[in-house]
């Protein structure tokens, strides 16, 4: 009997030991999976970076969504064999990328030019109307023209003169200028209203300064009618899943637009820059972008132009719009930024 009890006890102990061993091995497996989350796998090597064109700098504009979409659009045009693909000066223009983007995305308040948005909108604009090259339709040229018209100017050649549209403009302008309302709205005889009553004038500026200058050079994607911008949410995806999505898009010749939370990008120089420039703004930005609940105060869009394996880790070509010498640009190890992914946008079949 005693022997039987001892045997049972030993069995129990053995089970506990086995369980502990299994648990330990599971932990060690998951630990090794964690370390290998950013491994090369079968990603292969794809480099579409040349198709994205020159590195640009958006400066203090909040137009990363337009810059990243313009680079992705350039890739699409190159895929179709656009004759100027090899020419660095050929760049889908930012005014064209923002031209049809409505709802407070299309305003450039002079001096405070922040205007957040979504790349899908920029892609829709460019797919719908085609794009001029930046040399014919430069954002600088447009700004100069806008400055000549008054302090604020909505950029929207698609705008109608309907009063509902006008009200949207005014509301959006109030948002963009950090005012609870724009003084003068409602009084159609006021100077302010005259100044703000700009869609027709904006269309005119666009046409005369930009539209006409690239009339013959507008690049239209041949398959524009059969494709559309698509977005996948990545917040609940693991890093390997995010990488698989990016790899598959790159394999199908796409250059995805990746939305990242800059706060979680592991590049010290970038974090130092963010801390210095935006210390007091972070919380407000989170609220502004609707990202507060996601714990992200600095959402940013970049275009992914390639993948390769380096020292056993996947690296991605990040085409950023902060100038050539920015720290978060070029071939970046996956471990530095993939976990910061928010969503991915690309041009796919309808």
């Amino acid at each position: 009997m005693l022997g039987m009890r001892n045997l049972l006890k030993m069995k129990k102990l053995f089970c506990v030991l086995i369980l502990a061993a299994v648990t330990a091995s599971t932990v060690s497996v998951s630990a090794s999976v964690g370390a290998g989350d950013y491994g090369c796998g079968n990603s292969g090597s794809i480099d579409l970076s040349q198709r994205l064109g020159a590195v640009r700098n958006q400066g203090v504009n909040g137009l990363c969504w337009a810059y990243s979409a313009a680079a992705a659009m350039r890739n699409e045009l190159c895929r179709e064999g656009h004759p100027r693909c090899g020419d660095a000066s050929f760049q889908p223009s930012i005014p064209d990328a923002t031209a049809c983007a409505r709802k407070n995305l299309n305003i450039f308040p002079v001096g405070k030019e922040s205007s957040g948005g979504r790349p899908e909108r920029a892609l829709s604009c460019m797919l719908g109307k085609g794009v001029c090259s930046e040399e014919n339709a430069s954002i600088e040229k447009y700004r100069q023209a806008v400055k000549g018209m008054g302090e604020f100017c909505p950029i929207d050649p698609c705008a109608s003169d309907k009063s509902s549209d006008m009200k949207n403009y005014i509301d959006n302008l109030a948002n963009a200028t950090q005012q609870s309302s724009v003084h003068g709205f409602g009084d159609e005889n006021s100077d302010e209203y005259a100044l703000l009553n700009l869609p027709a004038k904006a269309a005119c500026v666009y046409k005369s300064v930009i539209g006409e200058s690239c009339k013959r050079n507008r690049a239209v994607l041949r398959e524009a009618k059969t494709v559309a911008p698509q977005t996948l949410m990545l917040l609940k995806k693991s890093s390997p899943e995010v990488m698989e999505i990016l790899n598959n898009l790159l394999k199908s010749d796409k250059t995805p637009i990746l939305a990242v939370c800059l706060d979680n990008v592991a590049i010290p120089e970038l974090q130092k820059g963010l801390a210095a420039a935006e210390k007091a703004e972070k919380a407000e930005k989170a609220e502004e972008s609707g990202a507060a609940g996601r714990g992200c105060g600095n959402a940013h869009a970049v275009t992914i132009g390639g993948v390769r394996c380096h020292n056993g880790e996947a690296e991605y070509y990040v085409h950023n719009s902060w100038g050539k010498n920015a720290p978060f640009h070029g071939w970046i190890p996956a471990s530095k930024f993939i976990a910061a992914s928010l969503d991915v946008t690309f041009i796919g079949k309808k």
Partner: protein
Amino acid sequence: MMTRVLVLLLFPLVLLVNGSANASANANAIITYKGVQISHAPSEAQKLVDQGISKASLASNNSNKMKTKKASSTRLHMSGENPADLLCVEIKGIPENIKEEKSGDEISICRMSDGSFIVSWDLIKIIK
């Protein structure tokens, strides 16, 4: 202005430009413009490099900032302003783009009131 040719040697920490005359900066930084290296008098950009940017001064500048807009939308909008250019504005500089002629790549610089300038991303390096 935008198509100014820049040949960057040893990747300068500070670039100094005044009108059409472009100059080299400190011992670590040499800029050659159209094949000419030009010496220079102390400039605002040079002083900035020598003295560095104190975090305390940035914090006080930030507290005076205009409130940012509040969007009605709950969708995740992205803006992603260049942090180095935002920092340039903080220190009362004017962000500007320089374009490399061959590649068309842009480099962000921060121009000071005396016309001298520093590569914007190098501002981050001199924060104390």
